[in-house]
């Protein structure tokens, strides 16, 4: 594997702003009726996506979830093709056949995402098996939410990853809500990292509002995987600022909770951190402005693209 140069702090901030701007644009387009479907946004969870992918090389594998626009962008996916896919355009990554929940950008290592909770974890293990079989040092990452922790494939996969010492990093984005109900309604386990100890998998719980803490935790896990040390479990405590999907008013969340997490907003927090460490405020503003411009251009181009071709309705069923 060719090692990728680590991202600078400003590049990390830029990725976070790209995601924030992209997700806000999707939300805006959805509200305007220009994007259809079932859209799950990760606004508020940028620290997890960017922190994790900052620890990876381009050829490492990432497997996402139904809420994975952020993961794909963090891994380097092309914004126009991604927006075109979400907007059902023929120029989308998957020609509009995947949509928001089934995005794929294999050229940057974002292999696929899934609409089935926990369904991607075994896939990530399979990619790790490919690395081992071919004697490559690619690491495989599976993102999943706290809701996945109570499913069969999650536990089967933890067992199997540990048993075969697979080079996989299991990144649990614990945002405290499983669809419309709190995690406490699904399990008595408060920290999903606790599940890992049963399978002798090294685990850590980090603050998802701190992108560098996420990056450092995942870097340690990636180094362990590349060194033959097998799987790791990184639980990222995070929060989605939007509902489960666009259109979900999220009445199950209290106002004080929302206010608290807005204060913990990982993007603003990292920008503050950089300002405090001496980065001039105008540079930080430039990063945000540049991200918003890139997203606006990508969205404009994507929406001007032709819609998915109905003639393709049965295409790609078989190779």
């Amino acid at each position, binding site marked *: 594997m060719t090692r990728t140069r680590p991202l600078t702090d400003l590049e990390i901030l830029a990725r976070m702003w790209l995601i924030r701007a992209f997700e806000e644009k999707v939300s805006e387009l959805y509200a305007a009726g220009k994007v259809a479907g079932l859209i799950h946004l990760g606004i508020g969870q940028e620290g997890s996506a960017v922190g994790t992918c900052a620890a990876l090389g381009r050829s490492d594998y990432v497997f996402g979830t139904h809420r994975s626009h952020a993961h794909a962008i963090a891994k380097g996916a092309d914004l126009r093709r991604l927006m075109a896919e979400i907007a059902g355009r023929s120029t989308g990554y998957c020609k509009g056949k995947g949509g928001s929940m089934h995005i794929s950008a294999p050229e940057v290592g974002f292999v696929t995402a899934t609409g089935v909770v926990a369904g991607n974890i075994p896939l990530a293990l399979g990619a790790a098996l*490919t690395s081992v079989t071919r004697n490559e040092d690619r690491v495989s990452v599976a993102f999943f939410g706290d809701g996945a922790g109570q499913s069969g494939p999650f536990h*089967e996969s933890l067992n199997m990853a540990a*048993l075969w010492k697979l080079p996989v990093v299991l990144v649990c984005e614990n945002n405290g809500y499983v669809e419309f109900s709190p995690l406490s309604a699904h399990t008595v386990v408060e920290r999903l990292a606790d599940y890992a100890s049963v399978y002798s998998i090294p685990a850590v719980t980090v603050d998802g509002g701190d992108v560098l803490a996420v990056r450092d935790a995942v870097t340690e896990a990636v180094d362990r995987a590349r060194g033959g040390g097998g799987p790791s479990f990184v639980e990222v405590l995070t929060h989605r600022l939007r509902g489960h999907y666009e259109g979900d008013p999220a009445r199950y969340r209290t106002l004080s909770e929302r206010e608290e997490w807005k204060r913990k907003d990982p993007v603003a927090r990292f920008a503050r951190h950089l300002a405090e460490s001496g980065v001039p405020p105008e540079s930080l503003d430039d990063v945000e402005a540049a991200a918003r411009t890139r997203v606006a251009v990508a969205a404009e181009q994507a929406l001007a693209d032709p819609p998915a071709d109905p003639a393709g309705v049965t295409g790609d069923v078989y190779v």
Partner: protein
Amino acid sequence: MAARIRYIEAVRQGLQSSMRSDPSVIVLGEDVRYGGPFGATKGLADEFGKGRILDTPISEATVMGMATGAAATGLRPIVEIMFVDFATLAMDQLVNHAAKLGFMTGGLLRVPLTVRVQGGVSGRFGAHHSQSLEAWFLHTPGLKVVAPAFPGDAARLLEVAIADDNPVVYMEHRGLYWTKGEVTGNEPASGSVVRRRGDHVTIVSYSRMVHHALAAADTLAADGIGCEVIDLRWLAPLDLEPAVASLRRTGRAVVAHEAVTTGGVGAEVVARLQAARGIRTRAPIARVGAPFAPVGAAPELEDAFVPGSGDIVGAVRGLLGEAPPRTDGQKGGRT
């Protein structure tokens, strides 16, 4: 003349030749190093090593998902599901992921995965080890389905399945494992084949039921009734050209399988035959299959459940007006 070997040996031969020719082929399953309950993978770990013959825990869902992920990233995995009944545990990965990844990514990914399943009614194993679930797979866009009836096809079509860039469910019938036949390597890779020529009735079948169809044809030949027997071999994609050509001549057909009749492969075959150009049947096409019930474990219950050559003979005679027609040819007349 080619050597006659057992069906189970032919399966092993197909695995072996594929693994020799392609280092990206790996096998995952429960006890596959040991050889599994029937010995299909016996000895492969000695030749190919533990890195390519992988013993898994009893975790069908994750094993199927891993194989799918490995296939999408460059390997050519073969998953062994010990009994097709346990495929239920892996259906999310098979149906939602393996079958759809190629489509959902607009062709960015491909999943060259082979799923070996073993099933059918044999040995008084009861309702969790005796099913014929091919209709579920056939119903899933993106999957190919193959069900060989003879050792020659068992070896050849397994090689074809493994070389295919799509996910293929390769269905073995436990009751055929010890039957012998020639393996020439020249068996056709695709499509259905005519196993016996006849002018009066067309019998369309696959897997072990082909043997029952041939036995029924023998019985009926003694009475001067000529049956043409078609072995479908591949259920997806389904090749009905030989069956249609035959039915054009005979005007009468029986579609026979061991699976439950309701919603079975036979329903699809009958519908397509009826709709084919130039078909004018002299009697409604009959179906032979199992009754709408799980199979009972007791010998008497299993025997009463599983359709055989007698049921096909009865259906053919019914078509010829030699006996009162049964309800849709279904065993025991139950629906």
